[in-house]
């Protein structure tokens, strides 16, 4: 069947080594904004998009995880193999393979091209990163390479406007050839290459290079000089810890002013609504339910953006792969692979992409161990809870001559508690269920690249959108439900306590209280923890509503933090902090773990171990604090 007359659009797949710019190319072709970053293993799923070719044909394009061979060593590489060989959920193999090769590193990249050529499928070779190759002084004769390989070769610069034009111009022609190929299908056999085959491929590549590449260039000197410091055995590690420390400190320091602004705006809005509307259920729903609830979550937007700013910059520069290198030996002490650092750092943003990023870890035991500890990394949804409690209970005292603040230090300690407990859990897991030597480390260290400010800004904008959308939907809806539960039924005649005590939420809280009393939680906390399972930060919103509804004339507090400081004891606050370090309160994480491990067993294990740790840690914290304070 001809591709041209078929109803389905022709499909092309982007295949190539990790970090050669496939996703950047995909974004340039389709106008999407998939994640691009400077380390191998960014894309771990296939992504589908569309574009219109110069001849006006609609084309489907598939972005794939990078791989060094079709042998598929890890789950992400299996996706690539299955799509390319047409094994993926009964889909045919793509009509055209666009092999993407990093022009600065042709020797390595062409090896995969030679392997793919053996498939007998139509191929275009895109020599990407031509800008960088020229800067390095590589001289590549694309025409000769095309003649030697027998496939069209196009130079591209995926990150430059118009940089994919040469590829677009070849697409229609190549697709016509693909049609012919489909009519006389060449043998599409693939068998796992032996080491002899691999050596033969290398020989072939050497031949190609000798004929077509006058100068292959060298890795940039700048990267080497920077690495002489950043990969220094002592300074390197010190720098890494300094970066992490600065990151957590900045989350506090940089975000303070904008947070105060938002806080002012939220209370202004609340006062305005309160003054405009007549007293009644609607006013209470708006002020106590929606504004107090959603507002107390939205206020954390600046902190989340600061955190993401750091993560985006680290990802874009190429430093993440270095961190994995520096930490390989230390993480090996608890049985983890150096590469595990990358999923674990993503988990500071959110455990869901972190768990998915673990796909790049080849060995199943190593991967499971990484997945199991990813949720112990303090994700950004925990930030609001930490910040709120720190604001309420930790005095803002400058330390070290104003260099760091006490709140920032406490925040760092909470992050450290998460990290250390994760390492401890990994140690136990690797010593018991996941016994065995570690998978070898074989990882390319990409050249450093200056982050593009526009990309960082767009990345932050994207995050802000996601965060606000979540506040406007999930959290908004939960807040309305919680307001109802906390307002009805109203107080009986002659009630002495605030009305909320008699509401459904009050009843739920009081029912749970005995279970949580040993760890010092009040009934208000119990109420907040229930919707917190859907979204951790909702707990803060619920507390906002509860305390807004509980306010009586004399105990009126301007802020939620003030209300908490007035009504909780310090041991209770510490106990709640300890709870939040460990508690498995996130449905999204548990479901992604189920998906990635194909079953309920591992999410169940995760839930049980984390809730046990949470209860135990809170219990100890509370008892010790009671005894000492």
């Amino acid at each position: 069947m001809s591709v041209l007359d078929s109803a389905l659009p022709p499909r092309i797949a982007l295949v190539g080594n990790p970090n050669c710019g496939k996703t950047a190319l995909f974004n340039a072709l389709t106008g999407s904004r998939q994640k691009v970053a400077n380390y191998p293993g960014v894309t771990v799923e296939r992504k589908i998009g569309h574009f219109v070719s110069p001849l006006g044909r609609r084309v489907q394009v598939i972005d794939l995880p990078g791989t060094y061979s079709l042998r598929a060593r890890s789950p992400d590489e299996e996706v690539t193999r299955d799509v390319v060989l047409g094994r993926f959920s009964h889909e045919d193999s793509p009509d055209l393979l666009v092999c993407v090769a990093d022009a600065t590193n042709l020797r390595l990249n062409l090896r995969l091209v030679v392997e793919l050529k053996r498939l007998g499928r139509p191929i275009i070779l895109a020599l990407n990163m031509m800008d960088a190759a020229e800067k390095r002084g590589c001289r590549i004769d694309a025409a000769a390479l095309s003649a030697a390989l027998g496939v069209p070769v196009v130079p591209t610069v995926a990150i430059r406007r118009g940089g994919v034009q040469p590829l677009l111009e070849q697409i229609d022609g190549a697709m016509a050839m693909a049609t012919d190929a489909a009519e006389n299908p060449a043998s599409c056999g693939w068998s796992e290459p032996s080491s002899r085959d691999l050596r033969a491929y290398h020989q072939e590549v050497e031949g190609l290079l000798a004929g077509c590449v006058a100068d292959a260039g060298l890795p940039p000197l700048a990267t080497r000089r920077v690495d002489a410091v950043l990969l220094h055995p002592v300074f390197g590690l010190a720098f890494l810890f300094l970066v992490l420390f600065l990151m957590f400190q900045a989350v506090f320091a940089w975000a303070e002013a904008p947070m105060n602004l938002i806080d002012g705006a939220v209370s202004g809005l609340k006062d305005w609504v309160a003054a405009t509307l007549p007293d009644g259920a609607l006013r209470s729903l708006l002020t106590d339910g929606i504004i107090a609830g959603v507002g107390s979550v939205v206020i954390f937007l600046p902190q989340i953006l600061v955190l993401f700013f750091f993560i985006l910059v680290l990802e874009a520069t190429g430093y993440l792969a270095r961190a994995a290198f520096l930490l390989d030996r230390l993480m090996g002490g608890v049985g983890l692979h150096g590469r595990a650092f990358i999923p674990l750092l993503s988990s500071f943003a959110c455990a869901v992409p972190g768990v998915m990023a673990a796909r790049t870890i080849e060995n199943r035991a190593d991967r499971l161990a990484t997945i199991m500890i990813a949720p112990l990394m303090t994700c950004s949804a925990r930030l609001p809870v930490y910040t709120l409690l720190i604001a309420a209970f930790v005095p803002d005292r400058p330390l070290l001559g104003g260099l760091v603040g006490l709140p920032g230090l406490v925040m760092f300690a909470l992050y450290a508690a998460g990290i250390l407990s994760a390492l401890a859990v990994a140690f136990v897991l690797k010593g018991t269920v996941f016994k065995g030597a570690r998978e070898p480390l074989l990882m390319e260290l990409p050249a450093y690249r200056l982050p593009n400010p526009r990309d960082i800004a767009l990345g932050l904008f994207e995050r802000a959108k996601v965060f606000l959308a979540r506040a406007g939907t999930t959290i908004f809806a939960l807040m309305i439900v919680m307001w109802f539960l906390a307002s009805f039924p109203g107080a009986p005649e002659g009630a002495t306590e605030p009305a909320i005590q008699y509401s459904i939420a009050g009843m739920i809280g009081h029912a749970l209280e005995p279970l949580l009393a040993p760890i010092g939680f009040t009934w208000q906390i119990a109420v907040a923890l229930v919707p917190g399972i859907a979204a951790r930060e909702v707990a803060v919103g619920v507390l906002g509503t509860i305390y807004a509804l509980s306010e009586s004339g004399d105990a009126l507090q301007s802020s939620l933090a003030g209300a908490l400081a007035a009504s909780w004891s310090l041991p209770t606050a510490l106990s709640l902090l300890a709870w939040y370090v460990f508690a498995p309160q996130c449905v999204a994480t548990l479901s992604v773990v189920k998906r990635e491990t194909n079953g309920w067993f591992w999410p169940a294990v995760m839930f049980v171990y984390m809730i046990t740790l949470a209860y135990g840690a809170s219990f100890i914290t509370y008892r010790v604090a009671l005894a000492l304070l």
Partner: protein
Amino acid sequence: MSGHPTPETGQSPGGRHLGELKKGERARVTGVDERGVVTTLPEGELERRMIEMGLVEGSHVEVLHEAFPGRDPIAIRVNEHTLALRRAEARAVRVAPAA
């Protein structure tokens, strides 16, 4: 250069391996042989991975950086790219002094 195998060190007759190179040393790969290296991988797998990452007969390597502690893992330049690997597995790569 310092890369000449010395009889006193009791090296295998084939010369040195990548795992024992020091920072700054350059060499040429003369063979990949995973026997004698302990790994979790099935037989033949480490060899194939090394080849796929460019560590194949004739490649030029240079040890650029060493991590901490124990100067392990190492970052090496392999022809045009930079690769991180552990010394234990680097033992599978036999090298001769760069010409």
